[in-house]
């Protein structure tokens, strides 16, 4: 059964602007959503007295503003600030707050490259594929942190491949998956690589690529089976409404504010 959360009834006349991505926030619900989905971006642009002032004057949430001011005066950590914000806004369930607290703890103990990957993963999960690709590229193009290990970089390439795949850029995706498989030798990476090859190459070139490699051939036959199964399950006739919704989603993704600037920021 669907469940609802009552929103606070105050909407800011003057939005709080997240400078680096030119995003305007009007409600406490939007602020919490932004924070929870950009945990890797929590810094002085969010943790500051102007935000407390905005929460008090624009949203009339004086108790919450006061609590956050107190945290700031105690030089609190990002984690403490975010948790106080979430608890005091009464929107998120306790289980969700605990999950976020866990994520923040993990983030705190991570290497710099891992934090950057977390940012890319968040963008990938929210469908901002182009922005995610740029983040992953910034990791692999920089000097590698050997302590993170080859497998970590393999996963970065894997996520990059996935982002390209979502944009139907199969040639770029196969190149990324190839690197990923080379680095971490995981069967799933190989399968994704072969799928991209299947989509990017002509049948002749695809067969030629597989020939002589027993590992490729065995995975290709498994992939073929899986594709057949999926094909049987889905209805190839897409209704006009669904198509139109996909088009709208695509346009929205393409024109969404902050997508490119998130990376710049």
């Amino acid at each position: 059964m669907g469940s609802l959360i009552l929103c606070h009834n105050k909407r800011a006349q003057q939005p709080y602007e997240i400078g680096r991505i030119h995003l305007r926030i009007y409600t406490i619900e939007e602020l919490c959503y932004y924070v929870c989905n950009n945990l890797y971006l929590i810094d002085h642009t969010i943790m500051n007295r102007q935000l407390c002032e905005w929460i008090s004057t624009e949203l009339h949430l004086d108790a919450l503003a006061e609590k956050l001011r107190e945290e700031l005066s105690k030089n609190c950590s990002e984690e403490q600030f975010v948790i106080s914000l979430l608890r005091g806004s009464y929107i998120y369930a306790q289980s969700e707050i605990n999950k976020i607290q866990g994520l923040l703890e993990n983030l705190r103990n991570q290497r710099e490259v891992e934090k950057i990957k977390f940012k890319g993963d968040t963008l990938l999960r929210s469908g901002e594929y182009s922005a995610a690709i740029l983040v992953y590229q910034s990791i692999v193009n920089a000097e590698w942190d050997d302590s993170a290990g080859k497998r970590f970089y393999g996963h970065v390439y894997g996520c990059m491949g996935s982002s390209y795949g979502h944009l139907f850029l199969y040639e770029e995706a196969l190149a990324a998956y190839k690197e990923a498989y080379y680095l971490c030798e995981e069967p799933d990476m190989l399968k994704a690589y072969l799928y991209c090859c299947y989509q990017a190459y002509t049948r002749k070139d695809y067969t030629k690529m597989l020939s002589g490699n027993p590992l490729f051939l065995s995975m290709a036959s498994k992939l073929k089976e899986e594709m057949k199964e999926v094909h049987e399950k889905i209805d190839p006739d897409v209704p006009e409404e669904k198509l139109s919704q996909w088009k709208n989603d695509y346009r929205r993704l393409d024109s969404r504010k902050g997508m490119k600037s998130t990376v710049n920021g």
Partner: protein
Amino acid sequence: MERGSILGYDLNEKYCQISYYNEAKNEPETLEVSSDNYQIPLSLGKMDGQWVYGMEAECLKAVDDSLFVEDLFVNAFYHRKVSLGRKVYDAVWLLAKFIKLTLERFDEIEYLTFSTPFTSVDMSKMLKSIGRHLGIPKDKIYVQDYKESFCQYMFYQPKELWQYESALIFCDAQKIKAFMLKRLHVVNNRDKEVFVTVDEVAKAHIKELEAIHLLLDDEEKARSADETFKAFIQSVFEKKVISSVYLTGEGFENNWYPNSLKVLCNGRRAFVGNNLHSKGACYTSVRVCRDDNEGPVYLDESKMTQQISLRMRVNGKEGWYPVVSWGTRWYEADGEWEVLLEDDSDLEVHIESLAGEELQVERISLKGLPERSDYSLRLKIEIMFLEERLCRLTLKDIGFGDFYPPSGFSVTKDIHLGGINGQFNSMS
């Protein structure tokens, strides 16, 4: 300027009276027009382009009664035209003018409750539109009748005064009416809420009262009226446990009822005064401003005995949140809320009735909602009563700020209610 901003406004055919909440004393105070006089005659006058009201207008009547109007309450209710000087006015406009003049001394109005002898859809609409005309939003105005005012007044009195039944006796020049505040017996009451009502239990015409009212020095008539009133009280109070009695109306202004008073005060406390309704209205305003839902719920034939609730988390607390509460009048139950959707499975709407134990459950499918990450699907819920028994519930995707624009998703559900006819009587 008066300091109070939470007001109660008693309005009837003859007078108006204003009570305002005194924050320092933590209780309502009634606006004194002159020494020991709280009532403002409901009359308006205009001379040399200058509007006057109340006693000043009454004085103008003596000079030239074409410059003076009265009966504004009834004429406005029936949307009549009224002549004043050389002009013809809508009586509603004149009533609005009168109310505006009487409220001029209050520089800020946080909430205003009108208390009128009776109320209806038309009365509520008229007074709310007057309020809007004066710059008070309609959700900051409430209209209640005298019975509800009595009830709200009692809620703020010491509990021992309404532990059992409580009586209100109204008397004017011709008639006496008795009202009784009592608890209702409801079938479905899981939360142990207290439901009360006010019934008119007796009415009598006492011819001799006219002479008393006109201050005629007729002792015989006064004694006779006292005896008739005494018999009236005895019949009303018979076999009832009554904690307190309130006497109100101009009929009680002269002390013509010494013997009746002995019966009235026997084993209970009795009070006399004429500002109970404006104070009751003021208490209603206080209750709304303080969001005080703890006290008893007043019901009558025109109020909803059904409650519509949605599963919702409000300030961190999970529960069934009433979007239409019992005790609301159907024509005042419209509202809107913004909510976040936690999951997109069907929504359940619960309809509970005080007259029956059965829970009516309606489902609303949310098929067609766009897929979004958690806590970013914001919907507007609108409740609109198309008629007494038909409530329309609409859910609309309103987008999520700069993150997501509205998808155009909207779903409507008509909820048929059992109505209030008959159900209320079954609880008495």
